[in-house]
């Protein structure tokens, strides 16, 4: 549905050239929810804006539904954009129009008859669950409601593709989940292809089937979400995965942490389970086999695409020799392991 071929984008700051995107190639199939993740300044916003040519690529092609957008005239592009919906981080609703009239705008632009606009808009407001807010102005809506209006507006011209530019980044976690649910629903009901960009791995994990990771204007890694979570090949991918399950040491433990082992102190260990780790009940096994007690301090395990992964902080309580053997065994099971120090 969307093909991005050899896309480059260069910005000039005075005489200095900045490569915002270098040689990006991506194919997004009809009906998928595709996530692009990257940190601020990685170029992901530029990338999504290149898809409907809000930003014109310096070179390369953008093909949406078989049409090469970069080859179109300004008028043809205007027409084609009506089949590509877009929602934004800051919603971009017109403050001067009611909810109803905001959703009606794309239809007015396309010259649709008044009575048709009315029934279409009412259907869309029903779909996003805001039928009772039709005559309210955006200033009186919550962030989540505004994004729902924006989604209804983006769907008004029956697009084939929906672009989401950090659509949940200005929303609180609970609202983010409800908006993602809505996106999944329209993806299923309308068989809409969704391309979303985000800096939150949780969003990708929540609804995407495929993901691309970009860093520094380059495509670092892409594949199905399960694959990327199971076998991240690059450090950047690993960092993003870890960011979804960040575990920090509680402050009072931190204070009791020493670099060397003394009498009555036990190692505090961070275990990282990845797709490569052996899928077995290793914790209870280790405790039984090596005669140590394992006290789990905190843990954040997740299951995506058939793979268990996650982080765990645990104390290995027992004689030094036993703990060392346990550590050795866990390493053999391909669990990444780090001794953070010794807690008295």
């Amino acid at each position: 549905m969307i093909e991005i071929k050899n896309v480059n984008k260069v910005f000039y700051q005075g005489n200095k050239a900045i490569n915002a995107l270098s040689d990006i190639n991506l194919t997004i199939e009809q009906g998928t929810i595709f996530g692009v993740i990257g940190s601020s300044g990685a170029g992901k916003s530029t990338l999504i804006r290149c898809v409907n040519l809000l930003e014109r690529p310096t070179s390369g092609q953008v093909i949406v539904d078989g049409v090469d957008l970069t080859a179109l005239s300004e008028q043809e592009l205007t027409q084609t954009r009506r089949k590509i919906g877009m929602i934004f981080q800051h919603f971009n609703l017109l403050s001067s129009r009611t909810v109803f009239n905001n959703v009606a705008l794309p239809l007015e632009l396309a010259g649709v008859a008044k009575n048709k606009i009315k029934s279409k808009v009412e259907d869309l407001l029903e779909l996003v669950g805001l039928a009772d807010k039709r005559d309210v102005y955006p200033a009186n809506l919550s962030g989540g409601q505004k994004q729902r209006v924006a989604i209804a507006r983006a769907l008004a011209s029956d697009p084939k593709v929906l672009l989401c530019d950090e659509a949940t980044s200005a929303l609180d976690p609970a609202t983010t989940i409800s908006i993602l649910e809505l996106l999944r629903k329209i993806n299923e009901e309308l068989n809409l292809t969704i391309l979303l960009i985000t800096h939150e791995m949780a969003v990708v994990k929540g609804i995407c089937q495929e993901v691309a990771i970009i860093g520094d204007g380059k495509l670092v890694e892409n594949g199905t979400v399960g694959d990327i979570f199971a076998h991240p090949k690059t450090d950047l991918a690993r960092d993003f995965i870890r960011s979804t399950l960040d575990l920090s040491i509680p402050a009072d433990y931190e204070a009791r942490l020493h670099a060397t082992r003394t009498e009555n102190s036990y190692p505090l260990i961070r275990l990282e389970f990845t797709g490569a780790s052996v899928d077995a009940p290793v914790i209870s096994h280790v405790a039984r086999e090596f005669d140590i007690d394992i006290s789990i301090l905190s843990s954040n395990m997740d299951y995506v695409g058939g793979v268990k992964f996650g982080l765990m902080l645990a104390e290995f309580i027992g004689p030094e020799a036993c703990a060392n053997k346990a550590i050795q065994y866990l390493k053999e099971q391909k669990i990444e392991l780090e001794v953070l120090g010794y807690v008295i």
Partner: protein
Amino acid sequence: MSFNAVITWWTENTRLIELLVDSLWETLVMVFTSGFIGFAVGIPLGVLLHLSKKNGLLENTSINKILGIVVNIGRSIPFIILLVALIPVTRFIVGSSIGTAAAIVPLTIGAIPFIARLVEGALLEVPSGLVEAAQAMGAKPMQIIKKVLLPEALPGIINAVTITLVTLVGYSAMAGTVGGGGLGDVGIRYGYQRFDATVMMITIVILVILVQMIQSLGDHLVKRVDHR
């Protein structure tokens, strides 16, 4: 002053009252005619200034520069000088260089660049994301102007209209220089030159009330259309 005293003053000064009513009418004609023509030209000019800017919707830096210079020239000439300097133009347009109609020409020309800059400022307040959203929806440039920019900037534009009308009330006081009449002229000739403090006070009070009314009406309209 008791009620009777007002009545007495009123009957004794019918000529002065007639003069005040006539000059109020002249002021209103000057302010609203020049304001109306000024908006008709100044608002599109302001829109053009905004659109032709670098990274604007219809970027054209050379047009923008030329318009900018012309507007700045218009804004930098003191109105009293503009009034006199434009006498040949006025004579060409209205056939005479004296009278209320003659004063409307320089007032209009003085108002246009003023309005243009204010409207440009009002348009600048519209978040660029809205224009972008409209572009993404497949809006043509004219549609963006009509359905996004102008409606979103409407509170700012009404504010600009209010400020302009109030400024024009002030400028119209100088119209006496070319025999344009109006309240300001009465204030100068009867109040100042003839040392008639009563007339001076009356004209000032009428002007204050006029300005208050324009401002209140403007504020009220802004409140009604502003949903931000």
